[in-house]
């Protein structure tokens, strides 16, 4: 999808702005959620083994698995440890949101990860996908990404 290609090379906040603009251009909220469902197909499925290795963020109806490890050194142009993020969900809408989060965090340094604040959910109609209870689940996803990134990139 063009959006995901456009995000590479942007700073975290620039990339988020691009996501928000894309959603605003999609028109009605059903169109936005359809988009999430469509892009969810781009996320490679976790194997059972990968689910075992990943951290499960289990909130109510939707399960989320997150795995973080450093990118191979050869893929870091400046030699800094950079994040490789694997994400998975059993629901397509959350999978779509996770794909966007993966695109935001993938390849970032630990400093960039820790400074990042995920705001695109609040700034779009996507916040309606997450009730107050699920928004807490969403914040748990962000916290888990940062915590796993710290472990992966500090070592």
């Amino acid at each position: 999808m063009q959006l995901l290609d456009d995000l590479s090379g942007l700073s975290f906040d620039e990339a988020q702005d691009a996501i928000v603009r894309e959603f605003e251009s999609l028109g009605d909220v059903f169109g936005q959620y359809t988009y999430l469902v469509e892009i969810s197909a781009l996320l490679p499925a976790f194997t059972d083994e990968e689910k075992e290795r990943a951290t499960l963020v289990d909130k109510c109806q939707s399960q989320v698995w997150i795995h973080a490890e450093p990118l191979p050194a050869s893929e870091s142009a400046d030699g800094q440890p950079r994040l490789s993020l694997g994400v998975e969900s059993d629901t397509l809408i959350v999978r779509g949101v996770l794909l966007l989060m993966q695109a935001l965090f993938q390849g970032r340094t630990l400093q960039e990860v820790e400074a990042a604040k995920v705001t695109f959910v609040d700034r779009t109609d996507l916040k309606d996908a997450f009730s107050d209870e699920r928004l807490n689940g969403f914040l748990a996803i962000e916290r888990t990404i940062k915590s796993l990134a710290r472990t992966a990139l500090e070592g």
Partner: protein
Amino acid sequence: MRREDFPILKEQVNGRQLVYLDNAATTQLPLQVIDAMRDHYLHDNANVHRGIHTLSERSTRNFEGARKTVQRYLNARRPEEIVFTSGTTDSLNTLARLLEPLMGEGNVIAVTALEHHANYVPWQQLCLRTGAMFEVIDLTPEGDVDLVRLNSLLEAGNVKLFSCAHVSNVLGTVSPVAEMARICHEAGALFCVDAAQSIRHESVDVQAIDCDFLAFSGHKTCAPTGIGVLYGRKETLETLRPVNFGGEMVDKVAQEGTTFEELPLRLEAGTPNYPGAIALGAALSYLEEIGRNDIAQREYQLLKYVEDGISRIPNLHVLGNPAKRAGCLSFTGEGLHPFDIAMLMDKRGIALRSGNQCAQPLLHGVYGIKNITRISPAFYNTEEEIDTCLETLEMVCALLRKALR
């Protein structure tokens, strides 16, 4: 039927006309009930029972009038058999604590695999506390309570209580509660009916059923949340020692001891939700005025319309095929997550419920699934709304299927 009484049905959701099909979770309030609540707060509101002044007397009269309305609605013999609670869950938890002194090792408390957590967990926890055995009656493959298994358990002779949902909040199974009462009493067991899902559209006549206890919630009868009823046969309720103490339920209090009020006040400690009870009375009167049989017939018609329509959507599977279904049906779609279905439907203004419906033993234990999507029409829904729901559902399922990996 009577849509004009329900202003919320005109609400716009996500730019679309609301199609509210989540009535098994809660029903909407008609203007008649909203006006009754408004009138109460505008003209009558004061704490009940102990006041001498005019507003207190008006509130008390209306509160006790509501109790008599509930008595009439359930065909209970006496108003003192009607105890106001905060809902079905509160009723069943209170009942479990009331019955605790009667339970111990060697006793059995039985429920069915159909039960909502409110009619499962209190009994399970009571057994853990007292050493009684907790038994769960299986279902038939169609989703009815296995009466052969129930009979066999009752014949063993040590069942003290059997509690069963009159109508399942997942499968819509209607259980033969009068027959269940009969076989329970033959075996010397008490029988409790969870009428949360049946109260609006089944015949809920406590004398005809001959149950010992019955519980329901106001918010499934077009009344507000926070009010419900525990019915108990007077001869049985009188033998049970109160479990909540405080104001309203006492007669004389001194350091040496306390005496308690007569039924039902003895079981209603603290300031009751009298505005809620008054609203409940107005709601039940409203349903009676429309005609309970008319409501029941209409709701059956609508549910049948849903069932026929959903059978034409490919790859959707309706749970259960009970002998009689009322109120709701639940379905799965192969590879589709109910969260995705319900979320996309909501973006088209259609309110369905997805999740485990507070029935994990049924979904996980019997059907081996985590979540389902549920459709539950009420008498104020229309065939056109159901058409909109089913057309959108078919489109949504096709869209989701295309994205499966």
